[in-house]
């Protein structure tokens, strides 16, 4: 199997200096210090195949960024083993740098007063890309990411969405085999988010780039990734394909009915009414307690239907259930 990322029993502890409360505590802190070791990552193991699109998610403080920092060689693990594209990241960070790309939603690598074209030229130098290769690659990326119209505009004049597209191009110029994305759509409007997600999918299909993405936006996960690794309190609580995840956790459906009757009521175990207004009825059906067939049959006994839709609960709901289950 062609794995590009492999980790085994990876752990990272941080040593935190404790502070004492109050004014005397502050004075005491000047003379005495007490440290505490906090485990941030606790023996996680996972592998990622070439070309996979993996969502690495978890609540705040779960250890996502710490893991990404270890995978990119920024942080040294306390124990365990990592191999990324055949390199040990914290030992071969320089060599690994040529083969990976990073996009961090809240940090920019573009020069503020200059057009993106200048930063791209600089990155071509940094990654030692030969001119003809760079020209060809840049042309391809300009077409894919549609940044031609603002290619020569100073970065400070770009919208957040345009800037993010430029950040992606900047991270892809050297043809990285793995792209690490940390909250790539944070702060973007809905159109810009859709565009970025579409581009990431295109990138993965056309170039076979492995995507390793963290995001709090479940739509990023749903629309870009095929596999989800869920981290909580430094441990992996789930590692599955998106399909499997949905199959396992989709125990509920959302039923929306347009009824002939102005108002009607349904009193069935497993049915939770979410909305009941004029000719409009929305409920959540717990499939473990009652079937959709039964709910529709009971409805038809009371009113005829003009329209009916059955939806899965949102990904957000599933993730919330997952995080909740981990803390029970």
């Amino acid at each position, binding site marked *: 199997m062609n794995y590009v990322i492999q980790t085994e029993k990876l752990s990272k502890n941080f040593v935190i200096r404790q502070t004492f409360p109050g004014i005397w505590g502050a004075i005491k802190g000047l003379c005495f210090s007490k440290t505490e070791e906090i485990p941030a990552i606790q023996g996680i193991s996972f592998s990622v195949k070439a070309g996979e699109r993996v969502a690495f998610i978890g609540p705040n403080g779960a250890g996502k960024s710490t893991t990404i920092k270890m995978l990119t060689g920024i942080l040294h693990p306390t124990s365990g083993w990592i191999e990324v594209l055949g390199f040990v990241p914290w030992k071969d960070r320089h060599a690994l740098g040529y083969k990976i790309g990073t996009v961090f939603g809240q940090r920019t690598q573009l020069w503020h007063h200059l057009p993106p074209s200048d930063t791209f030229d600089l990155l071509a130098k940094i990654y*030692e890309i030969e001119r003809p290769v760079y020209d060809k690659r840049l042309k391809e990326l300009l077409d894919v990411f549609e940044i031609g119209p603002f290619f020569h505009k100073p970065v400070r004049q770009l919208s957040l969405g345009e800037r993010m597209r430029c950040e992606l191009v900047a991270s892809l110029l050297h043809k990285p085999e793995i792209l690490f994305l940390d909250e790539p759509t944070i702060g973007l409007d809905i159109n810009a988010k859709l565009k970025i997600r579409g581009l990431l999918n295109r990138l993965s299909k056309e170039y076979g780039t492995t995507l390793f993405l963290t995001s709090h936006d479940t739509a990023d996960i749903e629309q870009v990734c095929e596999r989800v690794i869920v981290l909580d309190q430094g441990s992996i609580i789930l590692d599955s394909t998106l399909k499997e995840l949905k199959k396992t956790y989709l125990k509920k459906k959302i039923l929306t009915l347009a009824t002939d009757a102005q108002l009607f009521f349904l009193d069935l175990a497993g049915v939770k009414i979410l909305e009941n207004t004029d000719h409009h009825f929305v409920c959540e059906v717990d499939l473990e307690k009652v079937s959709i067939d039964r709910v529709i049959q009971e409805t038809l006994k009371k009113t005829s239907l003009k329209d009916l839709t059955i939806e899965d609960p949102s990904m957000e709901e599933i993730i919330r259930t997952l995080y909740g289950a981990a803390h029970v």
Partner: protein
Amino acid sequence: MGQPMSKQSLTKYLFIFNLAVMQSLKNSTALLGLSLFLLTCLLIFAHLWKIAAAKMGAAHLHPDQLLWYIALNEWVLISIPEIHVAMEQDLRSGKLAYLLPRPISYLKSMFFEGLGMLTVNLLVLGAVAFLFTWWRIGIFPFESRVLILLLALGALAGAVGVIFQMLVGISAFWLQEVSPFNWIWEKLLFALGGLILPLAVYPLWIQKIAYCTPFPAILGERSALAIDFSYTAALHVALSLLFWGLLALGCLSLLYRKGLKILHVEGG
């Protein structure tokens, strides 16, 4: 700052230098602000020294000479970019950690970025300072060879200033706030560097202390060449600047390596 650079590495950093030059040129508002500030300083000191000379009698320093002295001091002082602010932000915001995977040294790239900004400032502010002082005094007292030397020493002093600014910036690895550290550096530079008064008029014991620091070479000792030029004195300034520059580079490299160790263990 680590190992010697290969030709390919040098190309990367020279490109950063170029971008910093372009970025500074595009930021014309900042350049205009700095120029106006420099002109204000020079106007104030020109008046101040005229009044002081009239009252006390210019025993061994003529106000015109002093204006050249101050112009050469302020030119370099205001040209040194506040690169410590960018470094502090990079360290404090954790951006440094995200820049590390790129195959380029952060420290060298910041140095060349600082040099690029310094170059633009030196050229623009140099033109402002020299033209103003020339216009104010009416004569240009330098031979072309001396002028070239003064400009070169000014550029070298600016480069040493950039390294010291980086030392201030890198202290963000350990300090909560680097601005108090920068404040101390600036005040020592003003006082021991002889910003508004040549060191020759300071009490002897202060002169002795001052000459044990890099400050006179960056400001007063260098600018005093405008009053009393000699090739020996110019060589002394150049050697002092090289000595302090190399020493500061060594300290910077050492501190950066120590800081990176913290980053590798504790994160960004």
